[in-house]
């Protein structure tokens, strides 16, 4: 495999052999290691010393179902620490097939000198941005695919990334003209913008396949893995995830009193009925939209949808749980149409819907709009694309918005807006939000559904549960697997070991693999320590520790001593 270095100072790119220390790493694990080895931890996240890394997981490009996610990473302008966010689409698969371990973007182009990185198999070029500068991600993707081929993959930023807004994500195209797969979290779109890189285009890797050490071993394990996913009651063709998408959990999270409502002031939303997955399915199919589509080639879960308006015109593909929670109930909106329209605006500007929804909730609390008033909310969000002062404020996320507007009730941890589970009534997620080196990120260790292990409203066992889930999350993000694909691997880790050994021939054991997963977190925590994060940063906001959340009137009461010792057995 090889590594692509892109020097934005000199506007040059070159291939190099993968250093031995990076050889057995992929995705999030590789990002953590590169940051630790190559990036000054205290550097300005939007300055020339930070690096933007794109890396497929260890199983990218070898036709393992759900394993084609692309990890993007760097030092986060929001958390000030390590950040990895991953997206579906075709980029992870394409880089894997091209035997590219990672693309490392370094330095910073001179002011207003924007470029596109074009990867053509074994060659590479940096070309001027041309007419896509200043465009949203839809138009950028359209124009670049017209220019470089409809089968190419486009990784791009919108206006938010170009303006280095902390809420900016990175957009990845998928199969068949699919748009808006997002590596959304942590402001990595701003890091990309800070480099002067508008987009990366990867030509379709026609006829390219990754080299396999033991094809039979890989294929046998991959088939078993896929079959177990298909048989899983949550994930298969009769499962909730496939039938209703990620919105399948709206009603359950609401019932448990953890559904973010009006800037995290309630755990139940009275308008939930029109936001739940069953209703989403009914409306989508009645209008001629699609349910059960996939975000990656060969995915057997297929939890995406194409949400359309009444004239069957697609608004977004896909409308997801986190977006419904943060741009919906969190803003007092009970209309999927309105949420989808806000979602489309975020996608186009290149914004993380979680961070932006959290920021909008804070702005509403400050009196800049009204909960439930779509027009006033849409007007605020539109200003992000216009680049007004208010737009830049919203685009910089929940913490910046709260600080400027003087709002204390900011749902964020380690600088990052909270996802769609209020930590007061799902305390395992609170522990993850507070302690993960990734900041408030549910994908780092989501405790929803772990009911048989720990009472979500209780304190007992939460730190142990969070650690276990964070280790699993590190594994998923490093192999390129979708986080929904975890059940077969948790039940049988040998399955993953076989797939990795089939791909690389490393002769790993389950113990080696467990060590690998734990080392991801160790490296990330060490980077954050060197970056200056202390125990005081790894906390849930004070208001959530004091203000009871209806309907259970729960506060976040996991003691600091538990938060400080989550990783003591790592």
């Amino acid at each position, binding site marked *: 495999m090889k590594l692509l270095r892109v020097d934005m100072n000199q506007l040059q790119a070159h291939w190099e052999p993968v250093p031995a220390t990076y050889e057995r790493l992929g995705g999030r694990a590789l990002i953590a290691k590169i940051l630790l080895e190559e990036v000054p931890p205290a550097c300005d996240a939007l300055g020339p010393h930070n690096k933007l890394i794109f890396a497929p997981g260890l199983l990218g490009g070898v036709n393992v179902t759900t394993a084609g996610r692309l990890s993007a990473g760097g030092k986060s302008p929001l958390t000030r620490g390590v950040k990895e966010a991953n997206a579906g689409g075709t980029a992870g698969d394409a880089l894997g097939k091209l035997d590219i371990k990672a693309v490392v973007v370094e330095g910073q182009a001179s002011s207003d000198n924007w470029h596109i990185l074009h990867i053509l198999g074994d060659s590479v070029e940096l070309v001027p941005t041309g007419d896509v500068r200043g465009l949203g991600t839809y138009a950028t993707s359209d124009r670049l695919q017209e220019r470089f081929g409809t089968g190419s993959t486009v990784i791009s930023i919108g206006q938010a990334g170009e303006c280095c807004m902390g809420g900016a994500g990175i957009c990845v195209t998928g199969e068949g003209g699919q748009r808006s797969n997002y590596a959304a979290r942590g402001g990595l779109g701003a890091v990309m913008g800070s480099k002067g890189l508008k987009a990366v285009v990867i030509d379709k890797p026609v006829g390219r396949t990754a080299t396999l050490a033991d094809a039979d071993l890989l294929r046998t394990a991959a088939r078993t893995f896929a079959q177990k996913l298909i048989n899983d009651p949550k994930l298969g063709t009769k499962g909730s995830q496939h039938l209703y998408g990620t919105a399948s959990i709206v009603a359950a999270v609401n019932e*448990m009193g953890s559904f973010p409502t009006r800037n995290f002031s309630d755990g139940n939303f009275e308008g939930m009925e029109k936001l739940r997955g*069953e209703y989403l399915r009914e409306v989508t199919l009645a209008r001629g939209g699609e349910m059960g589509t996939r975000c990656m080639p060969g995915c057997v879960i297929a939890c995406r949808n194409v949400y359309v308006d009444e004239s069957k015109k697609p608004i977004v593909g896909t409308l997801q749980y986190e977006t419904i929670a943060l741009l919906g109930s969190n803003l007092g909106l009970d209309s999927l149409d309105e949420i989808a329209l806000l979602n489309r605006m975020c996608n186009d500007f290149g914004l993380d819907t979680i961070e932006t929804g959290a920021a909008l909730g804070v702005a509403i609390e400050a009196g800049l709009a009204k909960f439930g008033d779509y027009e006033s909310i849409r007007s605020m969000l539109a200003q992000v694309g216009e680049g007004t002062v208010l737009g830049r404020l919203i685009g910089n996320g929940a913490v910046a918005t709260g600080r400027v507007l003087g709002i204390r009730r900011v749902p964020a941890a380690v600088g990052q807006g909270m996802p769609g589970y209020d930590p007061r009534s799902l305390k395992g997620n609170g522990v993850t939000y507070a302690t993960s080196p990734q900041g408030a990120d549910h994908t780092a260790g989501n405790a*929803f559904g772990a009911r048989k292990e720990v009472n979500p409203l209780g304190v007992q066992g939460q730190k142990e549960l969070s650690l276990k889930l964070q280790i699993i999350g590190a594994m998923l993000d490093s192999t390129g697997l979708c986080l929904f694909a975890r059940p077969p691997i948790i039940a049988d880790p040998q399955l993953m070991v076989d797939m990795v050994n089939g791909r690389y021939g490393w002769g790993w054991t389950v113990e080696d693999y467990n060590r690998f997963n734990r080392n991801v977190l160790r490296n990330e925590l060490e980077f954050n320590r060197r970056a200056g994060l202390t125990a005081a940063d790894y906390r849930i906001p004070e208001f959530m520790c004091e203000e009871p959340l209806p309907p259970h009137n729960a506060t976040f009461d996991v003691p600091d001593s538990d938060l400080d010792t989550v990783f003591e057995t790592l």
Partner: protein
Amino acid sequence: MIISIELFGQLSPQSPRRQTLELASPARVQEAVGLLGLNPDEIGLITINGVQSEMQDSLPPDCRLCFFPYVTGG
């Protein structure tokens, strides 16, 4: 005692989505499951008054009992 029931997702076609059920007190969740004709293997999540519960848990009078299929967060 009378309890209110709500079924979600794939469970709702098996029985009316919202209904009330009269049970002799004391009663457990599993008795309600039997009366509703639900397949226990298809129930992934149970809540009593919004609190995650199990088949063996007792039902308080006038409670709200919800059944969900297997779901996963992400």
